[in-house]
């Protein structure tokens, strides 16, 4: 189902038609690997069956307050087991996902979709298609690069707490009211943040300064959650490296560079025929 990019060659006759000059440039055979490396097997795409489940043990060197095992299935978080040691009474709290629920990690989903768009842009023409002008290739490269950049930015820009608001509904038994959980991707890491909060009185004398949409709220930060005003008292952050995310990021960088090199080549050649606007 993945459009074959096996040729990996984009024929771009640059500039003047009369010279019929062809510039065969290999365009990102890497993008083929992207799909595999990102485990972006689109669900139900037939032969491969459902995505494989992978367990990640999240920890932190600085604290052992929180330990968690998250299970990724493609772009979805299918299971979560989080053990939280409450700092006040050293009570152990166990949090787990409901059996019937999956949490889509929107970052991975978006990145996957951007990549498939990029691949579709490259693949949706006939094998024998001949590019007529350099500008045509430049436009195509711009469109592909835009998708790849967005894909990369989705992985490098962690999801905010607000974006993960639905996550609280995933747990069984449901989360205590003074806890909030955020799961997100930061570069090549799968991160889990547990916030311990206390509610601010609506008429409290304390000056309410909302922290805005920042990714990680530090202790003392205040924000609004639904109708409530909350203040962060403790933050526990644990993370785990996801190897294929690392690969994906490398491939994004490489493909972007390849695209840029192709663009550079085209502009170099078109500046040789400088009297003809490309």
């Amino acid at each position, binding site marked *: 189902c993945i459009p074959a990019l096996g040729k990996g060659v984009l024929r771009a006759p640059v500039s003047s038609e009369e010279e019929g000059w062809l510039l065969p440039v290999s365009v990102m055979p890497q993008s083929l690997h992207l799909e595999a490396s990102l485990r972006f097997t689109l669900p139900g795409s037939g032969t491969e069956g459902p995505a494989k489940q992978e367990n990640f043990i999240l920890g932190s060197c600085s604290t052992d307050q929180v330990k968690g095992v998250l299970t990724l299935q493609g772009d979805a978080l299918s299971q979560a087991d989080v053990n939280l040691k409450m700092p006040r009474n050293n009570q152990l709290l166990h949090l787990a996902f409901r059996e019937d629920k999956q949490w889509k990690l929107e970052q991975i989903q978006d990145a996957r979709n951007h990549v498939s768009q990029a691949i579709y842009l490259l693949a949706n*023409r*006939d094998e024998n298609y001949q590019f007529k002008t350099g500008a045509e290739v430049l*436009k195509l490269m711009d469109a592909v690069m835009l998708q790849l*950049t967005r894909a990369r930015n989705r992985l490098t820009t962690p999801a905010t707490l607000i974006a993960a608001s639905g996550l609280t509904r995933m747990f069984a038994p449901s989360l205590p009211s003074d806890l909030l959980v955020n799961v997100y991707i930061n570069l090549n890491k799968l991160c889990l943040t547990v916030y311990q909060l206390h509610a601010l009185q609506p008429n409290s004398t304390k000056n309410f300064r909302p922290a805005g949409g920042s990714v990680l709220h530090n202790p003392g930060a205040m924000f609004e959650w639904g109708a409530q005003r909350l203040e962060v008292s403790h933050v526990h952050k644990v993370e785990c490296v996801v190897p294929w995310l690392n690969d994906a990021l490398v491939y994004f960088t490489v493909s972007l560079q390849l695209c840029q090199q192709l663009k550079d080549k085209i*502009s170099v050649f078109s500046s040789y025929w400088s*009297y003809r*606007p490309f």
Partner: protein
Amino acid sequence: MKTSLQAVALWGKNAPPHSISAIMITDDQQTIVTGSQEGQLCLWSLSPELKISAKELLFGHSTSVTCLARARDFSKQPYVVSAAENGEMCVWNVTNGQCVEKATLPYTHTAICYYHCSFRMTGEGWLLCCGEYQDILIIDAKTLAVINTFTSSQSPDWINCMCIVHSMRIQEDSLLVVSVTGELKVWDLSSSINSIQEKQVVYEKESKFLDSLNCQTIRFCTYTERLLLVVFSKCWKVYDYCDFSLLWTEVSRNGQFFAGGEVLAAHRILIWTEDGHSYIYQLLNRWAQMGAAYKTFSGLSKSIYPADGRVLKETIYPHLLCSTSVEENKSLPFVMGYMNERKEPFYKVLFSGEVSGRITLWHIPDVPISKFDGSPREIPITTTWTLQDNFDKHQTVSQSIIDHFSGLEDEAGTVVVTSSEYVPSLDKLICGCEDGTIFITQALNAAKAGLLEGGSLLKDSPSHKVLKGHHQSVTSLLYPHGLSSKLDQSWMVSGDQGSCVILWNIFTEDILHKFFLEAGPVTSLLMSPENFRLRDDQIICCVCSDHSVSLLHLEGRKCLLRARKHLFPVRMIKWHPVENFLIVGCADDSVYIWEIETGTLERHETGERARIILNCCDDLQLLKPEPALSVASETHKHKSIEQRSSSSHQLGPIPCPGLQVESSCKVADAKSFPTPFNVLPVKTKWSNVGFHILLFDLENLVKLLLPTPLSAADSSNSFYGSEILRRAKSTVEKKTLTIKRNKTASGSLSAEAQAKPLNDGLIQGNNAIKFIEENDDIKRQKKTKSSKKKHTKASRKVDANLTIDTAKLFLSCLLPWGVDKELDNLCINHLNILKLQGPVSLGLASNEDHFSLMLPGWDLCNTEMKKEYSRVNLFSRKVLDLSNKYTATLPNHVGTPRRLENNCDSFEESNAIVYLLSRLFLVNKLVNMPSELACDFDRFFKTESMHNKVKSPGNDILRISSFYGYLRNDKNESHTPDADLPLLKLISCWRDQSVQVTEAIQAVLLAEVQQHMKSLRKTPIDSQPVSTAENGNCEMMQIPKKKEWTEELELQCIRNTSAPQTPVSPVKHDSNSNSANFQDAEDMPDRCVLEESESPGDPRHHSWMAKVCSCKVC
């Protein structure tokens, strides 16, 4: 662009690139709307004969347009919504190109559907959007605010396509969508309106996995209310809507990718591909054909298509009837659409837009049939058109600003301008050309030569300089003095394709220094901000296309730094004044920090840290605000796209014209002495072909002309002023004499008058050039003495002549020439303005960064205007009606005519121009007035009418006068606001009737000029000495006299046409009779209105007339 800015586009011979990325036809089948990868929208008029002609280009988006959709019930409001790659959304009025609403959301939409349910919904309806985000966004069609979402409970993902199913049978509207993973989902629409508005979560009603990827289109067959067509990129499928069971799958052959489809009729569908082909299929019922074989095959088909154990009611297969194709020389991808109109006189149209900018239409027959032998029939192309076709067809209109240089070039090719820069302080336009030459010319003269008749005589004038030094195409220009007044006024820096940067002295035309950078074409030249100095000098920064950045020290004539490590194009340059760092931001979000003194790379950061560094620099700048900074920052905004801090330059492949216009206008604002005229070079993405926009700042023009009465111009220190005065006086006197003679002789006025203006134009033009040159010299001397004191009053006086010239050019561009030949001649003679060569491409600014520009040939788009070729530059038919209305209210005040009855001298001429401009400004202000103020205004009118027009110049008047306060100064005191009230009322009435600004301005200008000229024509006959005293009796006497006179003139004209012995050529006969008719119309607007409405115009015209008449102001 500010709304008080009036723009005129000088397009040149080449059309700007328009790579179509979205296309639609409006419901009235009169307009095609296309969106482009460059970010512009184009409106094309579609004639009843299916002929296409481009009308106007809409600027507003800075990135590729992703989708277009209807934004209202089209019969009520002709609004279309457009969405761009970066989340910008705009609602446009496609009849006039105005941006009605805009918003930028953090979502990229790929498809929009308009939904309105009149009996359950308040407001203007919803825009249902899908794109690069989960599920469906519901956006308010009026405010463009997100109302709510349709949420998926099962596997939420991006949505590829959607359609609204309106079924008569079940009386419920549903929304059908297909996600990127191929999941079909259904939401109830009409029954969930309330819960959506109450911000509740609405989940899908059904969902089904369709087992294919890359869904392109989903369509419901409204004829059978049964079939569902789903087009994927590699196959298309037909489903039964009742249970979503699959009925047929057709896989694409020979590598084609399907791009969309539509249901033509019951069991007839149209599928199109990415490469511009389309196929019409008849869906045949297998069982009906098989008849007896029913039983044998029913089991088989069941096994092929198991439908949840239920028996399929029908099984279908497609039969290819017809196909369409495009020529082989195509550019991918195509965007196509189909318009199914069942009502006469509309057509069934298949349309496609290409990346090359070509639009192709096919008229699909009502009943498509295959050939006799059963093979598919090819449907021929009905029409095809590109933007360039418009430019080729109307070449006289598409002048470029430097066309008059072409005489200097060899005959083979005309010069192509590859870069240009306007220097407002010198009124010089610097143009770098493809062959390496650089022209420096007076912008105003160049514009005149390009636009005006008789302007061709300016061509030979030695008003321009040619700098030769580059051997390759000049890619960028910089005038350092324009950015920082401390730098030498004679310096200009240019960079070329071959990486050579030259420092010029533009006054002596010498090369001061050549820098060879060896780094590929110079893509942009920037200057360090004022607060950044190296050894007390500012430095120039060159960005080259090999992504390197070089710093040049002009005073030292040396290259300070070559930063060559960047892998991606440079997007942003920041200066760190304290630590002497150059911070370079690249397209891949990485940051390079260079130490300027040593030339070493200090740091390289990517990702989050890079972002922090760039933001940090912002803070640094903000921490120490310097008073001098603000001006500098304004000027720097010229080049920057995201205007954040003074020391940041953002560049790269997104020079979005909209923002550039905006920013450069801010530049004009920021300067302490306002420039009423500006030339803005505009370039589009992926192309080095640009065009120029002339910007007239009406507000500044009026400001400049009004507070310094022109009598100051003939003070002794500006000798040329008195010169022009004397000359003008003499010519005008001569003219009045000739007119007098004509009048007394036989009234063959037009013949003589037409002969005159050419001479006048010549003299005037030559003088103007001479004066401007002198003007420059003076300025230069002054500035070399004390360059800082350039904004003194003296320089303003020097500019007065230029300002008048600007005003004249502006009036030339706006006047509807050819409406009345006689009037044209009078204008040429008395106002000393030149006639246009052809219709100009006017611009319309909707707000700060949204505006539209007419394209060459716009005047022929309106079908009703086609017959009247003699009318040059008439914006629309409406203008005449509006103008008549205006004239009808005008006789109430006689301030102008009386003032103009003074002896004709050059004061008169300039006074008249000033008066006209201030009028136009007032109209512009009124029509563009923000709604709150407008309410105030209307309330005032109500109270005023309650008073029953008793003159009560109390608080109410004060309120108005505060509104256009500075227009009412000593200059215009002769007519008090209450004399203008009916006019104000009329104009604010126009605003409610959605009369366009351009229309209103042109109408008022026409009426005022007519009025003015009437009075001028009157003077020669009127032997009575004219009193300037404000005497009521005098007013009373003059009005009837005027009427008498016009009647007399009418008679004269009629006599003129009937008398063959008069020495006038037959052509002029026509024009005379024509003018007579208009004279007639002018005096009897009501009759004119009747005639107009009886003429077989389009229905819109009628409805508008009805509106006007019901308002009872007229």
